[in-house]
Each structure stands twice: as C-alpha cells, then as structure tokens.
C-alpha cells in the first residue's frame, strides 16, 4: 500500500504536470484556430484596406456638388399642381408640422409657388427636365435621376457636412477620404482625393476645408484643394536655383531626419508627412501635364463650352476633373456655389444653370467617348432641396424658396448605376411618395458601386468603430445596373 502511495506521488511529479499541461495548452491552441479574433486581434484590425471588397462597378467618382441647394422644383421635379394652386397656402396636412428655417418660420402664409419654367419629357424614361438644362436633357439616357432624396439637416453647413461626411457635426472623414482609405490611390503620382471650387453669381454659401477633412483617418487621405487660378497647384515648381537632383537630395536628408524623429516619438503622422513630401515630388512631373488644358482639341472646348479654358469656372473644373479622373484620381470633388435662392429665384437659377448645365453634360459625353463612363461615377446634386412655397413676396414672375430637406432631386451617371428615374414625391413636391433615399443610403450605394461594403469599411477611433454611414444606411439595389 505504501509503495502504491509512493508511486502515486511519483506519478504526479513536475515533469508529468508540465507534459500534461502542455497537452492541455496544445488543445487550447488547436481550438483557438477556430477563433481568428482571439488574443486581442479585434474585428476592426482585420479591416483590409486598399482593395475593393467585391468586384466594383465604378473605380472613380466625380462629385459635382451644387452648393446652396438647387431648386428641384424648377429643374427636375415637375409639379403642375403648384401652378394650379399658385398663391394658395400650403395645406397643413402636407406640411405635417415640418420644422422650418428661421427665415420662413415667422411667415404667416406659405403661398405655393409653381415654377415659371417650362418642362419637357426626355429620353427612354420620359424624365421631366426643365428648359434651364437643355444639355442635361440631351444626356438623360445616361442619367439615374433620384427624385426621392431626403436629409436630416435644414441649414447649409450641417446639411453639407452631412452629405460629405455622413455626420452633421464636423471632423469626420469626408466621403473622398473614406474612399482613399478603403481603396487606396490608383495613381501614386497624384492625391487620391482632389477638391475644385467654383462660384456662380447666385446667392452663395461658403464651403470650408472641414468638408474634405480626413477626420480621424491618416492625413494622407485628406482632400487636396486645387487653386482656382491658372496654376491649380501652387508652389509646385522648384524655385530658381533648385534642380530636380537637389530636391531629391534634400528630400532624402529630410526623410532621414524625420525617421529619427519617428523613432523618438512614434507619431504615425510623421510618416504621413514624409509620404506627402514624396507625393509632392512626384506631382512635379505629373501635375503640369494634367492641368494643361491648352492641348485639348477644339471639339472639347465646344463640348464643355468656352468657359472651360477660363480657370476657376465650373466648366474648367469639370474639364480638369475629367483629366484628373482619367489619370486615376479616386475622388474628384467639385463645389459650385450660388444656388441658395431665397429670393429672386427665377433670375438667379438661370445664371447658375448657364454655369453648370453644359459642362455637367459635357463631362458625361466626354467620359463616354473615351470609354470611361462605365467605370466613373458622376454625381450631381445639392445638400437639400427648396420649398414648394414662396419665401418673401410671391409675384407673377418672381419668388424665393427656402430650404427643404424632406425631398429633393440628385442625379448620378455612369459607374454602374441604372439609368432612369427613381422615386417620386407627392403632387405638392413636398413629401416623398415612393422609394425614399436617405443620405446614408446614398453613401452606402455609392460605396457599393465602388466595390465596398459600407458595413465593413470601418475605422476605430476614440473607442468605437466608425463608418461613413454611421450605424445606418442600406444599399439601394434598384439604383445599380
């Protein structure tokens, strides 16, 4: 018995314990193979960026943002009822207590204002388009017109910020930054996200750099604003007395210093900075050729309109956008200001349409004739719509329209969208009657066209994962061809 006890004791020696333990550990290890996220490797670190999640329809986006909010009722959303009821009050049953801006909230009456412009029906979809946009009407078969957009914000800045970043507050990454983050740049010699500004004569609203901010993403994803002057990228050329070899040497030395600094502080922004220096160096070769529009054939000048050679115009920006896009810039963001027609709308909108109509349509034709429209998504629209009732005094031929987030029209073209008209508003053009598309849905759909699952494109910041679509948004499959 004693011997057995001794043996029992011996059988539980350290070696045995360890070997058993290792077996146990081994089996745990085996089990852990089934849990890829074990040992702190959390889901967001598994976010693979730089490639589409699935085969994309579009590779690039050109976003023609109509800043200030164009009036859908005078351009796309034809509502004869408003003309019939001209001057009568907007029925409360239609308004449904919708909040108004401070500009019309004190108005006692909300007289309905029908458009003074003629509408025609165009294309296979027989889409209504105003006489103000004859060129747009000529490419209607390539357009996917969404008449049922809606947003949450009622004033310019939050609405614009919402459209660009998926949140009304600032400092979130812009749509272009998300795409740069998700897909990387195509052409390493150019920024993946470029911003071009222009201004019409109508009542304008500001645009600010926060709209093309990288937010919490790496600063290499920030939008690069091009100047509206004759040199779109300022200070790109080497100064007198500095040649390319000197510049290279300088960058190499600077890179070494930055590397030392990185070793000390480990701030990833140092590397981002170095990358930006290197990109600027490569841009010295790439940019002059791209921004030179003097070699464009006369047919292009006539296509976009002669303004396309005048720097800083919307037409010139459209032409430049095509050249940037053609050269692999993932996201070209245009802003054209001046659509905020609270008063004198018929007059102001005429000028705005003259600025943008021909060039917007030209961009589509131009991309198409190069075989690029299939892979380039063009988006045209403002941050919200305008009211069906008049702000200020309604006269026979003049009226103003206030902000209207409940329904408005945007269009998309190319890049795998399905041409046609999507969604409807009610006869007053006030509420959406069919197929509403929220801004988050729009973002989700645009990302899907680019081959990205909006729920998988995440970034962890301050303890939570963020998406362009926040926690909402669904892909509108019917918009995809």
């Amino acid at each position, binding site marked *: 018995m004693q011997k057995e006890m001794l043996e029992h004791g011996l059988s539980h020696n350290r070696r045995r314990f360890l070997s058993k333990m290792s077996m146990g550990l081994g089996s745990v290890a085996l089990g852990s193979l089934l849990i890829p996220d074990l040992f702190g490797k959390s889901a967001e670190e598994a976010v693979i960026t730089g490639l589409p999640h699935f085969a994309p329809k579009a590779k690039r986006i050109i976003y023609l943002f109509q800043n200030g909010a164009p009036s859908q009722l005078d351009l796309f959303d034809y509502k004869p009822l408003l003309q019939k009821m001209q001057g009568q009050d907007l029925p409360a049953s239609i308004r449904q207590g919708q909040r108004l801006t401070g500009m019309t909230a004190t108005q006692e009456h909300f007289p309905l204002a029908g458009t003074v412009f003629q509408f025609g029906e165009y294309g296979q979809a027989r889409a209504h388009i105003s006489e103000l946009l004859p060129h747009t009407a000529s490419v209607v078969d390539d357009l996917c017109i969404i008449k049922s957009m809606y947003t949450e914000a009622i004033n310019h800045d939050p609405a614009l910020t919402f459209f660009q970043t998926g949140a009304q507050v600032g400092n979130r990454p812009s749509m272009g930054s998300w795409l740069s983050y998700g897909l990387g740049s195509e052409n390493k010699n150019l920024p993946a996200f470029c911003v071009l500004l222009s201004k019409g004569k109508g009542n304008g609203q500001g645009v600010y750099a926060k709209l093309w901010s990288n937010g919490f993403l790496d600063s290499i994803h920030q939008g690069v604003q091009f100047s509206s002057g004759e040199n779109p990228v300022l200070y790109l050329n080497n100064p007198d007395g500095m040649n390319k070899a000197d510049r290279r040497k300088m960058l190499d030395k600077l890179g070494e210093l930055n590397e030392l600094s990185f070793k000390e502080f480990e701030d990833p922004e140092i590397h981002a900075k170095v990358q930006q220096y290197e990109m600027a160096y490569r841009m010295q070769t790439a940019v002059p*050729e791209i921004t030179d529009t003097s070699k464009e054939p006369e047919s292009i000048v006539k296509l976009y309109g002669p303004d396309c050679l*005048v720097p800083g115009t919307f037409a010139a920006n459209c032409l430049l956008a095509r050249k940037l896009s053609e050269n692999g810039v993932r996201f070209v963001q245009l802003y054209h200001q001046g659509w905020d027609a609270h008063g004198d709308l018929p007059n102001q909108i005429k000028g705005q349409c003259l600025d943008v109509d021909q060039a917007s349509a030209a961009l589509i034709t131009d991309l198409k004739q190069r075989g690029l429209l299939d892979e380039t998504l063009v988006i045209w629209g403002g941050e919200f719509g305008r009211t069906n009732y008049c702000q200020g005094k309604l006269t026979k031929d003049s009226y103003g329209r206030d902000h209207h987030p409940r329904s408005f029209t945007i269009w998309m073209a190319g890049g795998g969208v399905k041409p046609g008209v999507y969604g409807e508003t009610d006869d007053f053009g006030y509420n959406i009657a069919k197929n509403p598309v929220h801004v988050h849905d729009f973002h989700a759909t645009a990302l899907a066209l680019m081959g990205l699952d909006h729920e998988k494109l995440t970034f962890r910041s301050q303890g939570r994962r963020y998406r362009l679509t926040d926690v909402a948004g669904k892909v509108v499959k019917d918009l995809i061809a």
Partner: protein
Amino acid sequence: MKFKNIAAALLVPLNALLLFCLVVEGKLVIPAWLQVFGRMHPLVLHFPIVLVLLYAVLQLFSGKTMKQEGWYVVVEDVLLLSAAFTAAGTALMGLFLSKEPGYDADTVVLHKYLGAFTSFSLYGLYSFRGRLQQKALFSKLATSITAIVLLWAGHLGGNITHGNNFVFAPVTPDHKKPPVALEDAYVYNDLVQPILEAKCLQCHNDSKSKGDLVMKTKELLLKGGKDGKLWDTSQADLGLLMKRIHLPAEDKEHMPPDGKPQLTDQEIATLYAWIKTGASFDRKVMELPETDTLRTLATKVLKQSTDEQFDFAPVSDKEISKLNNNNRVIAPIALGSPALAVTFYNKPFFNSNALEELKSIGNNITELNLDNMPVKDEDLKTIGTFTNLRKLVLNNSDITGNTLGECKNLANIKTISLSGTAVKAGQLAALQSLPKLKHVYLWNTGVNDADAAKLQQKGNNIAWFTGFKGDTVIMKLTTPILQNEQTVIAKPVKLMLKNYIKGATIRYTTDGKDPDSLASPVYDSSIVISKDETVKAKAFKPGWISSDIVEGHFFMSGIMPDSAVLLTPADPKYRAIGGKTLIDLDKSDLNFGNGKWLGYRDNDMQALLLFNHPVKAQSITFSALMNVSSYIFPPTRVDIWGGADQQHLTLLGTITPQQPGKEMTNAQNLSLKLSFAPVELKCIKFLAVPVHTIPAWHAGKGEKAWVFMDEVFVN
C-alpha cells in the same frame, strides 16, 4: 430481466405492425395523436444507430476468448435486443411521419424501405442469435450488412431534413454553371429552362416521363404530353401548363404535385410572361423592349450574376509586388480575385519592355489601361497574348491601327478604347471577329460617323462610338479679361487683356464706343494707359460668335487727399479700414464682403476729405457698388461741399444716381462723378443717402437699402 422479456415479446407485434403498415400504406390515415408519435422519429432514431453500431463493433472486433466471458454474452444480448426494439419503434414512427406532406417523395421512399429492412433484419438477428453463434462468419456478414443499411438509411434521413449533400457541401466544389450576364442571356436558356430543370424535370424526364411528358428539349416541350400541347396562347388561361400551375395546391391536377417543391410567384410570372409572348426559344433578353415584363423579371434574376467569375489561378502576391511600381500599378480587381487590372502612368517612364515584363502575369490581366502612353504598333503583339483581357484602353497612344490584327486571340475582350489615336475605319475589320467585343470607342480618330454606321450595319453586337465632333456647333467667345490689378494709377501702365480661347483676336477702344471687328485697333501687350480712360475690349475669331465687351475704368489718382474722416460710422459688418478706405487706392471688386467696402444702411454716410495744403479741384468721382439682389442700391443722392475748413463749406453740387429698375441687373461698380467750376479748397465734405424704402418690385419691398462706397478721386 422483466423488461428484457417484455421487449423481446414486443418485437414480434412491432415488426408485424410495421410490415402491415408498409403493405397498406396507401390507405393509411394517421390520427393527430399518432402524428405526435410520428414526429418523435427524428429524436428516437439516434438510439438504434448508436446501439447497432456498438453491437457491430463488438461483433466484428472482439476476440474469441472475450466472447466466451459471461458479461460479454449478457451485454451483447441486451445491446442487440434494445437495438432491434428501438429500430422497430423508430421505423414505425418514421412511417407515420412520412404520411405528412412536405418531404421529397423519392428520398423518403428509399429511406422508408431501408429503415424497415433494418428493423426486420435486427429482429432476425435477435431471433436466431443462438444459431448464429455457431456460424461466426455469417453472423459477422449479417451484422455488417445491417449496419451498412442502417447508415445508408440514416444518411438519406439526413438528406431529407437538411438537404442533399449536407455533410460534404462545404468541401464540394460548386459545379453550378457560371452565371450569365444579363446582356448575354437568352430568355429560354437562362430564364425558363432553369425553372423547368429545378421544378419539373424530376418527374418529366427521359426515364420517368409522367403523363408521357418530357420537358427536356424544345421539341419535346412543343410536343406536349398525353393530355395534349402544353400551351395555347389563344386561350384565356394560356393552355394546359399554366392552367395546371394555377390550380389550387390541393387539387390533384395541380403541378408541381403536392409534396414536391413548388414554383415561386416569380417563377410562375416568368413562365406566364414567356408563354404569353409566344414562348420563343431563341430570343435574347436584351432584344425585349425595356418595359417588357419578362425583361424586368430577368433583371431581377440575373442582376447579381453580372459579376464575372474568373476560373484561372491567381498569381502570387510576391509576383505582383515585384512588378508593381509608381508608374505601373497592378492590383486585383477585388479582394481575393485572381483577375488583375494594370494601369500605366507617366508617359516618360513607359517603354515596350515595361509591357513585356507583364507576360509572367499575362494570363491574369483582365483590364489594361495604357491611356496616354506612347504605345507602339508592335506592342500590340505583347498585348495580344493577354487572352483574358476584358477591357483595353489605348486612348491617345501612338498606335496607328496597322497591327490591330494582333488582337485576334483576345477571345474575352469586351471593350476597346482607341480614342485620340490614328486608327482608320478600314483597319477596324480586324476587330469584328472578336466574339465578345461589345464597345469600341473611336472619338477623335480618323473614323467618322458614316464609317461607324457602316461598321454597325455589318451586324454583330459591337457598338462603335465616335463621340462629339462639334464642327457644326457655333459658340460665343468668352469675354476678354482685364488683368490689370491696379485701375487707380499714378503713372502710365501697360494695358493687360487676355482671352483664353486659342486664336482669338482682341480689339479695343478708348473712346467709349463698342469695339468693331474691322475698325477698332487690335490689342497687343504694348498698349499703355496714361490718363483717365474707359477701355472697352471684345474678342473675335472666325467661326465663333464674337464675345461680350469687357469694360474697364482707369483713374489717374489725381489730387490725393491727405486724410479722410468718417463723420458717421459705417455698419459694423462693413467697416473696412475706416476713412482710409476712401483714399487707399485699392479699388475693390464686386464682392461686397471682401472688407474693402464701407457699408451704410441705417444712417447716412458723411465724410470729410482733408488736404494739408490748398488744392485746385474741378471734379470728384465716387466708386459705389450696386448689387440689387443683395439689397445694395446706389445712394438716392450725394451732396458735396468744399471750402477752406469744416466750418467754411459751400455746396459744390449734388449727384443723383439713376436707380435700378425692375429688370434686375448684375452686380456692378458705379462711378459717380460731379464736375464743378475750378475752386481752391482744403476740405471736402460729402453726404450719401441710402434708399429708405426699397420699391415694390423688389423682394425686400419697404425695407432700407444699403449704400456701399470705396475710392474717391479728386481732380
């Protein structure tokens, strides 16, 4: 022991009942309480499986000596009995369950007989266990057969509940046909046939032609079955097929019969629309009108399948990164895709070698973008080996089109872009034989619309795009731009005019007349302005409508006041730099918010211009802004006084600017001038009065208007 006896005794009646039920199966009606019993089949079935297998293992693998031991005999006995007992119960339950609808009939039949066989055979093994002990080999064989049949039955049972090939599905390669893209799809082959295959062919095939109907081919479908033709579009119900499909599910004639997978609403709609439109067998989906029901249905079914599946093996990441650089970007088209898209950038870095290096991954390249690269004709030979190419972009390259024949092996190519190259119509015949080619882009090439129309006539599905020519479009030139930043000048300056349109001529005048295409002088950069002058310029170009006129006012700064004092404060939002704004020689543009304008609304503007020494003056000019839509109007009047000092002033005159009318004008700079008899003075005072009530035609009717003022010139 008691239980053992009872179980053994029950074996006979259970198996007898099972046999009986099997024989009269067709007439059985299961009462509800028995259905509950039947539904326990999926639970109980695990007992016989485990018990039989355990028994089989003992039988097959235990040694002879062990088989002699007492406990072994008991265990084996109990095992076999409980196996036989539970097997009989399970089989009975299963039989009851099989009477409920919703199971795939064919599988159930086999499963049923195998289950019954297992039960009978176990009963046999148990009954003859004593005699079998003598014949070890036969015993082993019988046990094995029973076990195998049981496993087979179990497997079929699994298939019934979980679907076919449930176990191996995760590792079975998908043998589904690659999805067809919408544009390639045929109505019958890709929409109708898959439905028939899934829901009808099971009973209406070569080996099992129920109702003498086989639905496999076009001919056989047209032939119909023993009840006649399948469709007749002259009938309201479109004939036999649709009628049978539309019958209520419990009707005997309803197809597919009860118990078989039913057609979905969408499938029924598809068959209906197909037959209604004449049941065509060789029509393509894209040939249908866009609003056609069938086409709409097709877009639902085939939409997601337009993503092409690639069956070639991927190349290693290492190989890709080896070839990747800043000017030759190679990337999979999506995560995990073997297909690669290659794009070249930066003209100076391109050469034929850069293209040839791609041969090692050539089989994987599906998109090749050589836009703007100096690609030579002979490079097409390399490109021609990339046989998986879907899209090839050669825009603005140096190819002449002579070697387009090298593309003949690009059997998968869909899109070729040749815009901006020297290709000519005759060379394009080489592309016409490419089987999948859909789009060819030929803008800005030697190919004109007539050539394209001719190519189009030759049939096949290729669309030839020639794009926008614009040679018949007549447009208006842009207005020349006056680039002089300083329009208030102290010394002569060069006149700087510019027009961005190549080949446009600028003509100008300084006499206030509109420039004329013949009479007015042509602008060149040597023209100098040396006095107060109004320049008008206009651009001309043959084939273009001449531009609008640009007008610029140059002011000699004349007599400079030494200081300026505002007697009434400007509006806080538009204070600019105070009184100095009037005499800083910085004339503002039209932007009222740029901080260079003095704005007044609630009070009148009053200011003093002071000179240190007496000056002789005879005119004064004010710069004001008019921007009606922003409520900025010209002042209603400007009163001007002059004298030796503030206390000794006499009225020099009053300016009454013209007020804008209803026809809105764009924002403009106004130049308000008052001339008077020469007078010596050291002090000028002026008063500008804003419009008090905006006229009725304006949106701001009744409100106050703004006055905006900038430079003042004294001469």
